[in-house]
C-alpha cells in the first residue's frame, strides 16, 4: 500500500534540512515519490511539522532496578482511568505498556535502556518485550565485574579484554557497552564512600581511569558503533566539574559518550558552596570533538532515582524524599533506588535545573548533545514536551527563572543566554544525531529507504509543549499507531543489538569461571531468544566499517 503525507513541512536535518512537500510510505519504508502511481491513502498534513520518529538514547525504562522502583513507590502511580479493550494495561501507571504508549504519543519510536547488568539482562529483555510499539535496545554494563577487574590486574591483552567484552555484549544482546562509576560500585563493597578517577579499587589495584580506558579501547576494537557510554565518578557532588573535565582529557581523543552531564556540572561557589559550572564544562565539550554527551535535565516534581552507581545512591539515600530507599549489592553490579522530589523552591534543585539548560544552550553543536532527563533520575520522560518548549523560548525560561530563589540566577549564567533552539536543531538532537550515534542508518531521517517511523505535529508556535505532548499522527514501520495524540493499537517493537565478531578463546574460560564463582552455567548471561515472548524481536545493527 502506498501512503502519502501531503503538504507537510518536512524537517529532516540528515537530508539537507527542510522542505514543504509530500512524503511517501510503502510498507515499512519511506520511498521516493513513485512515478505514475496514485497513493492508496492520503493524509493531508498541510501546515504541520513532519519529523522522523524520536530516538531517546538514555532512559531507564526496564529491568530489575526499575521494577524495584515501581514496587517501592505504589503511591506515585495510582491508576485512574480504565484502559480501552485493545490497549490492555496501557493505563497502568509506570507499567511497560504505559511506557510504550506514552513514548509513542510524543512521537518517539526508539528508546535505549542504558543500564543493564549482565545477570539482569533477561529481566530487562522480558520487560522490553512487554513494552509495545517502540523499538528498544539495552546497553550492557561492565566495569565493576570481578572478571574484568581481574583481567586488568593481571594486565591481560587488549585482545583478550575485547573478547570478554564482546562475549558479554553478544550474550546479553546489547547494543553497546556502558560503564557506571568504573570500579566505584566494587569499591563501595569494600566500604569506600567516595571514588574518583585515579582512586584504586581495593583487591584489584586498578584505577577507574584504567578501567575506562580498557573498555573504550575494547569498544573501538570490536567496531561497536556506539562509543563507550560512561557514567563518570562523583555524580551529584559540588565541585565535580573537575572530574568531568579530567575524564574528557583522559579520553585522549578516543570516542566517548558522557551520560547525564548535568549531574557533573557543579562548582563550589556561593555561600552554600554549590554553583553552576556548566559554562566551562560546555566549553570543554565544545573543544573535544571525540566527546558526545546527553544532558540528564532536571525538571520539577516527584520521581525516583535509579542507578547501578550504588556508592552514589547510598550517599544520596540520606536525602531521599520520601525517606526510604533500596540499596542492592548485586552480582558485580547491583543498584540503588532512591525516591526524590525536585522542588522549584529548593536552591540546589533549581541550580541543577539551570545547569542542564546551560549545557543544552552552550554546547554549540546539536549533533553532540543529546536530549535526555536520564528518566526517571532528572525527571520522568513525560516532561520532554515542557523541556523542548524551554529550549525553544528564552522568554519561557525567564518566566520559570523568575519563580525560583533569586540566588539561583546569581549562581548560573542561564539568564544571560539568548539562544533558542530551532525545529531544525530539535530534529537534529532528537532524531538525526541519535541515529548516527547508535549506528541506526535507517532511522532518524526521512530519506527514501528509511524505516517509516514518522511523527507529525501541529505547528503550535504559542504552545510548543502541547505540540510535542500529543503528536497529530505517528507511524511506526509505516503503521499508523497514534492519531490526534491517542494510541490506536499495539504492535510489538523490536530490540536492537550489536553482534561484533571476535575470537572465542575466552568462552571456555568464562564457562569455567561461571561454574566456579557463580556455581551456575553461563546461561546466566546468555539470552535465549526463544525463551522470550517474541523470539523474532531482535534486529542486528551494523558495526563500524
Amino acid at each position, binding site marked *: 500500500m502506498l501512503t502519502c503525507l501531503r503538504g507537510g513541512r518536512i524537517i529532516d536535518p540528515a537530508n539537507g534540512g527542510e522542505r514543504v512537500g509530500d512524503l511517501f510510505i510503502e510498507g515499512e519504508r519511506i520511498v521516493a515519490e513513485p512515478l505514475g502511481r496514485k497513493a492508496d491513502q492520503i493524509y493531508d498534513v498541510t501546515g504541520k511539522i513532519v519529523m522522523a520518529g524520536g530516538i531517546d538514547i538514555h532512559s531507564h525504562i526496564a529491568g*530489575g532496578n526499575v521494577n524495584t522502583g515501581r*514496587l517501592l513507590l505504589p503511591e506515585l502511580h495510582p491508576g485512574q482511568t480504565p484502559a480501552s479493550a485493545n490497549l490492555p494495561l496501557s493505563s497502568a501507571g509506570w507499567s511497560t*505498556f504505559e511506557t510504550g504508549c506514552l513514548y509513542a504519543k510524543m512521537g518517539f519510536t526508539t528508546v535505549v535502556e542504558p543500564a543493564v547488568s549482565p545477570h*539482569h539482562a*533477561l529481566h530487562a529483555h522480558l520487560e522490553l518485550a512487554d513494552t509495545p510499539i517502540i523499538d528498544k535496545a539495552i546497553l550492557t554494563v561492565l566495569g565493576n565485574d570481578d572478571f574484568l577487574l581481574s583481567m586488568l590486574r593481571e594486565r591481560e591483552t587488549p585482545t583478550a579484554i575485547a573478547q570478554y567484552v564482546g562475549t558479554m555484549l553478544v550474550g546479553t544482546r546489547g547494543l553497546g557497552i556502558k560503564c557506571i562509576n568504573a570500579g566505584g560500585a566494587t569499591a563501595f563493597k569494600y566500604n569506600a564512600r567516595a571514588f574518583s578517577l585515579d582512586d584504586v579499587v581495593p583487591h584489584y589495584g586498578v584505577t577507574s581511569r584504567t578501567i575506562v580506558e580498557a573498555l573504550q579501547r575494547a569498544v573501538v576494537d570490536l567496531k561497536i558503533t556506539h562509543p563507550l557510554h560512561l557514567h563518570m565518578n562523583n555524580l551529584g557532588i559540588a565541585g565535580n566539574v573537575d572530574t568531568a573535565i579530567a575524564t574528557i582529557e583522559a579520553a585522549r581523543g578516543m570516542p566517548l559518550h558522557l551520560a547525564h552531564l548535568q549531574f557533573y556540572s557543579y562548582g563550589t561557589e556561593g555561600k552554600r558552596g554549590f554553583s553552576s559550572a556548566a559554562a566551562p564544562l560546555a566549553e570543554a565539550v565544545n573543544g573535544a570533538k571525540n566527546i558526545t554527551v546527553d544532558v540528564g535535565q532536571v525538571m520539577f516534581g516527584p520521581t525516583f532515582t535509579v542507578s547501578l552507581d550504588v556508592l552514589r545512591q547510598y550517599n544520596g539515600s540520606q536525602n531521599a524524599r520520601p525517606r526510604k530507599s533500596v540499596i542492592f549489592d548485586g552480582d558485580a553490579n547491583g543498584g540503588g533506588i532512591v525516591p526524590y522530589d525536585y522542588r522549584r523552591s529548593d536552591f540546589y534543585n533549581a541550580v541543577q535545573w539551570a545547569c542542564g539548560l546551560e549545557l543544552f544552550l552552550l554546547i554549540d553543536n546539536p549533533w553532540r548533545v543529546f536530549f535526555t532527563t536520564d528518566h526517571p533520575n532528572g525527571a520522568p520522560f513525560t516532561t520532554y514536551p515542557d523541556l523542548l518548549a524551554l529550549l525553544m523560548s528564552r522568554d519561557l525560561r525567564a518566566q520559570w527563572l523568575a519563580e525560583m530563589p533569586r540566588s539561583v540566577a546569581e549562581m548560573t549564567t542561564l539568564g544571560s543566554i539568548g539562544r533558542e533552539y530551532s525545529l531544525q536543531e530539535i530534529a537534529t538532537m532528537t532524531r538525526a544525531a541519535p541515529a548516527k550515534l547508535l549506528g541506526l542508518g535507517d532511522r532518524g531521517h526521512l530519506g527514501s529507504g528509511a524505516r517509516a517511523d514518522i511523527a507529525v505535529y501541529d505547528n503550535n508556535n504559542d504552545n510548543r509543549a502541547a505540540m510535542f505532548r500529543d503528536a497529530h499522527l505517528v507511524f511506526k514501520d509505516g503503521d499508523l499507531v497514534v492519531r490526534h495524540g491517542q494510541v490506536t493499537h499495539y504492535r510489538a517493537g523490536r530490540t536492537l543489538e550489536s553482534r561484533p565478531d571476535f575470537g572465542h578463546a575466552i568462552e571456555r574460560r568464562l564457562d569455567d569461571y561461571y561454574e566456579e564463582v557463580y556455581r551456575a552455567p553461563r546461561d546466566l548471561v546468555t539470552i535465549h531468544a526463544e525463551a522470550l515472548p517474541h523470539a523474532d524481536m531482535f534486529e542486528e545493527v551494523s558495526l563500524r566499517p
Partner: protein
Amino acid sequence: MPQSACFIDARAVSRAEAVRSAAALIEASRLPVFLVRACDVAGARAAIRLAERVGGIIDHVDAEAALRELDVMRSFGKFIVTPNESRQRADTVLLVGAGLTKLWPEMVGRLGLGELPRLALQPERRRILCLGGDGDETSLSGLVDQTIKAPDEALPGVVAALRACVAKRRVGLSASHKSALDTIAEKLRAAQYGLVIYSPLSLDVLAIEMLMGLVVDLNKTTRFSTLSVGASGNAETLMQTAGWMTGFPVRTGFGRGFPEHDPWRFDTARLIESGEADVVIWIASAAAEPPSWVSRCPLVALTLPGSAVAQAKVQIAVGRHGHDHDTIEFVRDVQALAWRAASGASDLPSAAATLDEIATSLSREAA
C-alpha cells in the same frame, strides 16, 4: 496427552471441552480470582493478561510473607545482597530466627559458610552468629561462633536490644544478657562486610524493620546487607512480572478497568469467606494441593497430571515448568529472573498456553 488428564466434575473430558467449560465459568463470574501456587514468568504473564481482561484479581498463596517483605521496603527501605556476592565477601554472618537452614536446606553450601570469602581483602574464617532459635541448626554445627537463644516471639525485643547495643545506647537488660549482646555488637561493628539472614516467616513487619534499622546503623561505618529466606521464590516470580505489567505486586484487582493494589481487599481467603469471589482459578505448574478453604468456591484447577483435585469443577493438566518445558523464574542465588532448560521436555501444554487457550475461548463481550 492422555484424555484423562482433564476433568469436569471429576468426569474425564477432552482438553477442548475442559477449556471451554473453564472459559464459560470465568465469563459468567462477577469476580474471578486467579490464585497462583506455582508458575513461571510465562504463566504469570498469561494469568495477569487474562485477569485484566475479565476484571479479575491476581493473588499468590504465599502473598502474605512476600507482602510482609514488601511492606518493610515500601515503608522503610531495604538493604539486599545476592547469595553469590555474600559468599564471596561476607566475613561476618548474623542469622536471626529459628529454622533458617530448614527453610533453605542448601544455605550453608550456597553461602559458603564453611569456606573463606574469596574477595575479602584478608580472607579469614567467617564469623557466624546466631540470634534466636534454640541452637538446633545442626547443619551449622562447628561453624557457629556465638549463639543467643530466644524463642521467635522474643525476637523483636532481642533485635531492638542488639540495635541499641550496636549504637551504644542504654538498654534495660541484665548484665549477663547485655554482655552477650555487647559481644555480638562488637563483632558486627568489626565486620568488613556483614550479612544478616532472616525469614519473614518468623519475624513480623516491625521486627524486620528493626533489623533493617540495625543494618542502616552498621552501614554508617562498615558494609552490611541482608538476605531474606523463606518467602517463596515463586511469589517473587509473580511479583516481579506483576510489577512491570501493572506497576503493582500481587493482590491486585482489575475490576475498575485499571490495576488497583490492596492487600486486604484482594486477599483470596477473605474474598472467598465473604462470598465476593465466585470462581477461583488455581494455577500450579508444580506439585501442589490447593488449601482446603479454596474449595468453598467453584474451582478451575490448572495442575500437574495425576494430582486429582477432588473439589475442582474443572481440572486441566498442565506441564511442570522447568521439567516439561523451558522456564524463566526468580532464582534466589542471583536475586534475578533466570532461564532453565526443560529437564524432561514433553508435549504437555504449559499453564501459560492453557490460560491463553481459555482467553481465546472467551466470547468477545468478556473483553
